[in-house]
């Protein structure tokens, strides 16, 4: 393909100093995210997936490597220069409780991105906020409420509305449903899926849950010890894992189906 990918990451390294010395959570990660695609980044805790997300969002400067949005390099930019690219890439956080300012009303929270980038006249901003609330399934007359009046799932809807109102090309979702109950998790995943075709946004979906990703993502990148060890279509990775780490993970995932044998890691004979 000769088309420039929406997001191109090449040989990205992140390292930083902690009390006990240098740590190196991301060790040479490369991938492309195409327009309209959902790419899932899957790994266990400490594999570097969250640091990678922070680097992409400009919250943590990478120590080496390149990040390009439609061919524009953003890896070395300072925060002021980065601001120009902000509307193109937004994010949804894991914790629905700490990711919204508790003292702002919902309509303010959703409108703020437009205020910051001074898009549209005030009247148009209001209209778009209402439209966005409708799209994510929040009753329009709840705009005057504060975040603490909402459940976890509803707060995550507010977070999604806030991230998508700038009409970004890329939405980075960092474990957006792992703090939610199963039934609510399904609501949010379905919502994200519907919004994707509606708004033409591409997802980089960071998760520890391969079963969830398998239903939702087009492509999966398995991350292990700071590197991507395997990529492929989601179904392919699930059915035919290539890397030892992927196999070990799949062997340990309990599928809620009693008619199949227990996954190998659950069998007592394995001892």
């Amino acid at each position, binding site marked *: 393909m000769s088309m420039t990918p929406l997001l191109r990451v090449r040989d990205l390294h992140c390292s930083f100093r902690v009390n006990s010395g240098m740590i190196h959570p991301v060790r040479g990660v490369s991938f492309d995210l195409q327009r309209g695609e959902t790419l899932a980044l899957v790994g266990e805790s400490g594999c570097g997936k969250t640091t990678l997300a922070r680097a992409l*969002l400009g919250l943590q400067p990478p120590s080496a490597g390149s990040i390009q949005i439609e061919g524009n390099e953003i890896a070395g930019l300072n925060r002021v220069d*980065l601001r120009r690219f902000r509307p193109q890439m937004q994010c949804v956080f*894991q914790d629905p409780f700490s990711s919204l*300012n508790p003292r702002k009303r919902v309509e303010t929270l959703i409108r*703020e*991105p437009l205020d*910051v*980038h001074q898009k549209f006249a005030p009247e148009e901003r209001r209209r778009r906020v209402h439209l966005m609330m409708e799209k994510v399934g929040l009753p329009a007359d709840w705009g005057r409420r504060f975040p603490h009046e909402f459940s976890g799932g509803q707060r995550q809807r507010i977070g999604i509305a*806030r991230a998508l109102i700038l009409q970004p090309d890329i939405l980075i979702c960092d474990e957006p449903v792992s703090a939610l109950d199963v039934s609510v998790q399904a609501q949010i995943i379905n919502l994200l899926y519907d919004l994707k075709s509606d708004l033409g946004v591409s997802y980089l979906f960071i998760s520890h849950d391969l079963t969830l990703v398998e239903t939702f993502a087009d492509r999966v990148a398995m991350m292990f010890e700071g590197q991507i060890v395997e990529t492929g279509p989601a179904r392919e990775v699930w059915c035919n894992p290539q890397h030892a780490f992927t196999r070990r993970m799949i062997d340990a995932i309990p599928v809620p189906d009693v008619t199949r044998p227990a996954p190998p890691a659950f069998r007592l004979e394995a001892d």
Partner: protein
Amino acid sequence: MTGRVFRGLRAAGRNWTMSLGLLLLSGVALMALTASLLFPLSPYDMIGPPLQWPGQFDGAVLGTDALGRDIAAGIFYGARISLLVGFASVACALVFGVLIGAFAGYYGGWVDTVLMRVTELFQTIPQFMLAIVVVAILGASIGNTIVALAVVSWPAIARLVRGEFMVIRQRAYVQGCIVLGMSDLRIMFVQILPNAISGVTVMSTILIATAILMESALSFLGFGDPNVITWGTMIGMGRGNLRDAWYIITIPGLALLLTALALNLVGDGLNDLLNPRLRKRKAG
């Protein structure tokens, strides 16, 4: 819903102390406001015979001091100075302390190191000594007393604000604001500060009480403005008559005690009211 009912009950149980504090404080404020109406003469004017006990002389309900000055007038006019100095000095300290604390806590790194070393420098000098030195250098006037007390009050505020900012800065919503491309100043003062202010509010009331006490101590030692009467001046001037006319220093002393107590009660009440840990506690 349960939370709200709980909160209401608990607040009612605790808040009678806060109401008492507010009542006392508004009493002091009323005294300050009505001083010139009730006592058109200067509190330094002689209105009757000296050393009249409270109730002894008709023109002075609270008696007169060694020079025949009305103690009640002194108390009323003194209330003005106490409140003015207390609130003005803490207001100045707030502006400065919040700025320093916000920058140190938000940016961290060397900004934090430099600003906090400066703050510690001020904190290591005993507060009262520092206040005396500042007044001694600038000269004794109300304005300079306010400056001196602001100089000794701001480090505590700066440290508190820095701590709050360091914690809140790590919250996901602040990270979200950075990703949105919000400017640092906007994040600091629109997004973080309103969430950090409750602790500062509580501390301010206590600092006002401390400032009022310190102002009295300065006046007592003769570092106050000689043109105005304050509770501290009254105590200072009355100490010669401690044995025979103890009421001269007891009355302004009581006024001081009640004002400081009122501020502490209000501070306590505010703490319960604003403390997110108490407020957020929900059942289930």
